[in-house]
C-alpha cells in the first residue's frame, strides 16, 4: 500500500512539473500585461529542440539549454507583434501556437520512433532522499521538478519583492504611470514575454527528455492550454501555481489509475480538460470580477498616447 501511494504521489509530481514551469512563465508574461496564447506551440518547439540536440550530442543538458534558447527566440515574434505592433494578442498568440506546433512537427519528423539513448533521470538528493516516504516522493525526482519548484519560489520573490518585479507588475497595471517613472514599458514587456517563452520551452524539454525519451507529434497534448487556465486559477501568483499544477498532475495520473476499472479510456482522456473547465467554473463562481487580474492584460500600449 505504502509503495502504491509513494508511486502515485511521485508520478503526480512528475506530471505536474511541466504544467508548473509553463504556468510560472505565463504568469511573468501576463503580469507585464501581455497575454501569450502561444504556450502550446512554444512548448512543442522546446520539446523538439531538446530532443534533436540531445539526439545528436548525447548530452540532454545541452538539449535543455538549446530548448530554452529556441523558446525565447520564437517568443520574440509574439513580443514584437503585441508590444511593437500593438496587434491583437489573442490572434498573435494563436498564430504562435500554430507556427510552433507546425515547426515542431516539421523538424521532428525524421526523429519519430527513434528513442533517445540517454535521458535526464531522477536525481536523488543525498541524505534527504533516505527519509521514509517523504524522501522518495520529494527528494528522488527529476531535476526538472526541483528546478520548477525553485523557479516558482524565485519568480514569486522576484515579482513581489524586487524592483524588477514591481516594474513588471506596474507595466501590467498602469503602463502610462510606469512610463512616467522613467521605466521602458516596452522593454519590460518584451523581456517578460521572452522569459515566459523560455519557461514554456523548459516544460517542453521535460516532456521529451525526461518524462518520456522519444518525440511524438502532438506530445504536448493541450498542456499549453491547461497552463493558460492554471494561470487564471493561480490568480497570477506563482505559489498558488504550485498547488494548481500538482492538482492537475494528479488528474493526469488518475487517468491511468482508473483504466483497470473498465472505464472507457476515451472518457478518462477527457478528465484533464473537464477539470480545467471545472476549475475555471469554481473561479468564476468565487469572484466574477477576478480581482487579481492585471488591469491592462491584453491591452496594447502605445507610448505617448492619452
Amino acid at each position, binding site marked *: 500500500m505504502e509503495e502504491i501511494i509513494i508511486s502515485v504521489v511521485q508520478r503526480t509530481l512528475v506530471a505536474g512539473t511541466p504544467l508548473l514551469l509553463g504556468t510560472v512563465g505565463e504568469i511573468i508574461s501576463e503580469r507585464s500585461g501581455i497575454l501569450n*496564447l502561444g504556450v502550446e*506551440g512554444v512548448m512543442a518547439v522546446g520539446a523538439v529542440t531538446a530532443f534533436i540536440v540531445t539526439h545528436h550530442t548525447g548530452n540532454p543538458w545541452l538539449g535543455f539549454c538549446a530548448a530554452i534558447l529556441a523558446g525565447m527566440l520564437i517568443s520574440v*515574434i509574439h513580443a514584437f*507583434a503585441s508590444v511593437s*505592433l*500593438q*496587434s*491583437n494578442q*489573442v*490572434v*498573435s498568440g*494563436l*498564430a*504562435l*501556437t*500554430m*507556427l*510552433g*506546433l*507546425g*515547426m*515542431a*512537427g*516539421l*523538424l*521532428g*519528423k525524421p526523429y519519430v520512433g527513434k528513442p533517445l539513448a540517454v535521458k535526464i533521470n531522477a536525481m536523488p538528493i543525498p541524505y534527504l532522499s533516505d527519509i521514509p516516504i517523504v524522501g522518495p516522493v520529494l527528494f528522488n525526482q527529476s531535476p526538472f521538478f526541483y528546478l520548477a519548484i525553485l523557479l516558482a519560489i524565485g519568480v514569486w520573490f522576484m515579482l513581489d519583492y524586487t524592483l524588477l518585479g514591481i516594474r513588471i507588475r506596474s507595466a501590467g497595471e498602469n503602463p502610462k504611470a510606469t512610463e512616467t517613472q522613467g521605466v521602458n514599458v516596452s522593454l519590460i514587456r518584451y523581456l517578460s514575454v521572452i522569459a515566459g517563452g523560455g519557461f514554456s520551452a523548459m516544460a517542453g524539454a521535460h516532456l521529451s527528455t525526461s518524462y518520456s525519451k522519444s518525440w511524438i*507529434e502532438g506530445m504536448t497534448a*493541450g498542456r499549453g*492550454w491547461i497552463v*493558460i*487556465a492554471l494561470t*487564471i486559477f493561480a490568480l497570477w501568483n506563482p505559489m498558488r501555481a504550485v498547488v494548481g499544477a500538482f492538482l492537475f498532475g494528479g488528474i493526469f495520473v488518475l487517468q491511468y489509475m482508473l483504466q483497470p476499472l473498465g472505464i*472507457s479510456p*476515451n*472518457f478518462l*482522456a*477527457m478528465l484533464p*480538460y*473537464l477539470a*480545467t*473547465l471545472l476549475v*475555471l*467554473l469554481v473561479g*468564476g*463562481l468565487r469572484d*466574477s*470580477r*477576478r480581482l487579481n487580474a492585471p488591469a491592462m492584460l491584453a491591452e496594447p500600449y*502605445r507610448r505617448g498616447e492619452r
Partner: protein
Amino acid sequence: MLHVNVSNREQISALGTFLTLVLALAAGMVAIGLLFIISGVNPFFAFKKIFSGSFGSLYGFKETITKAIPLILIGGGLALVFKAKFWNIGAESQLLMGAIFGTWVGLNWGPALPAPVIVPLMFLAGFLGGAFWGLIPAILKLRYSINEVISTLMLNYICAEFLTLLIVGPWKSPKKFGFPYTDDLPESAILSLLPGSRIHTATLIVAVVAVVVLTIVIYKTRFGYEVRVIGENPDAARYAGIDFSRTTMLIMVISGGMAGLAGVGEVAGIHHYLSYPDAISSGYGFTAIIVAWLAKLNPVYVIFSGIFFAGILVGGDAIQISLGLPAATVAVFNGTLLIFLIMGDFFTKNKVCIQVGERA
C-alpha cells in the same frame, strides 16, 4: 540618427488595405520559404508542388473547391463572432458535434425517408448540434466569466474524445471488419456530387448562400450593427442599451451552427460514415480562423480566402506525399501567414515613417 515615427492613418483606403494584404501574404511566403530551407526542403520545388497540386489541374481545383466548402461555412461564422471580439477557437469540435447529430439522424431516420426530406433534416440536426456546442462557451463566458479561448479549446478535446467513444463503443458498425466506424448512411442520406468530383453541391450552395446572407445581416441590419459595436466599443454598446448576452449567444449559435453544417457536409458528402475525428476534419476549424482573418472579417470575402486556403490544404497533401513532409506543414503555413497578416494590419492602420536626422 534613424527615427521611426508612427501615426494613425486618418483614412484607410480600400486599395491600401488590399495591397497590404498582398504584401503581407508575399512576405509570409518568403518566410515560409526560409522555414522550408531550415527543414531541408527546396522551397521553390515545394511551392511549385503546392500550387500546381491545388490550382494547376482540373482535378486539383475540384479538390480545392471540395475543401473550401467547410472553410467557407466555418470562416463565415467566425467572421461574425470575431467582429464581436468573441474568440471562438472551438469550430473544430462544433463541426464534429454537427457531424455526430447529422449522422444520428441519417442513420436512424434515413432508411424510412426520401432524400428531399432526410437531407434537410440532417442539416438541421447538424446546425443544432454545432449551435449547442457553441452555446456552451457563450454561457460559460456570460455567466461565469470563463475565457472563451480556453473553454472552446477544452471543448475541442472533450468532443474529439466523445466522438471516438461513440465510434469504438455504442455506434461501432458490426460490418466494418472491426474498424471503429459507424454503419454507412443509407442511400437517401448521401449528398449527390458534382459529376467527376467530390464537390457535394448541396453544402456548397448552403455555404455560399449563408455567407452572402450573413454579410447582409452584418452590414445592413440592426443586429449586425450591434455585433460590430460590441466588438469595437463595448462601453458604447452598454450605454446604447445593446443586450450583450443575447447578442453573444445568438452569434455563437450562428457560428457553431454553421460549423455543424460543415460537419454534416463532410459526413454525408464525403465519408458516408462517422470515423476518427482527424479523418472527419483535417483542422478546418483552425484553418478557418485565418480564412476569416484574411477576409478582413467580411463573410463574402471568405469565399475567396476559403478557396485560397483550401488550395494550401490540397497542395499540402500533395507535398506530404511527394516530399514525405508531415501533416504539420500546413500548420506552419497557417501560423506564418497569420503572423504576417496581423503585422500587415498594423501598416494598414498606421503610417510609419523612417526619418534620418534629428527628431522633428
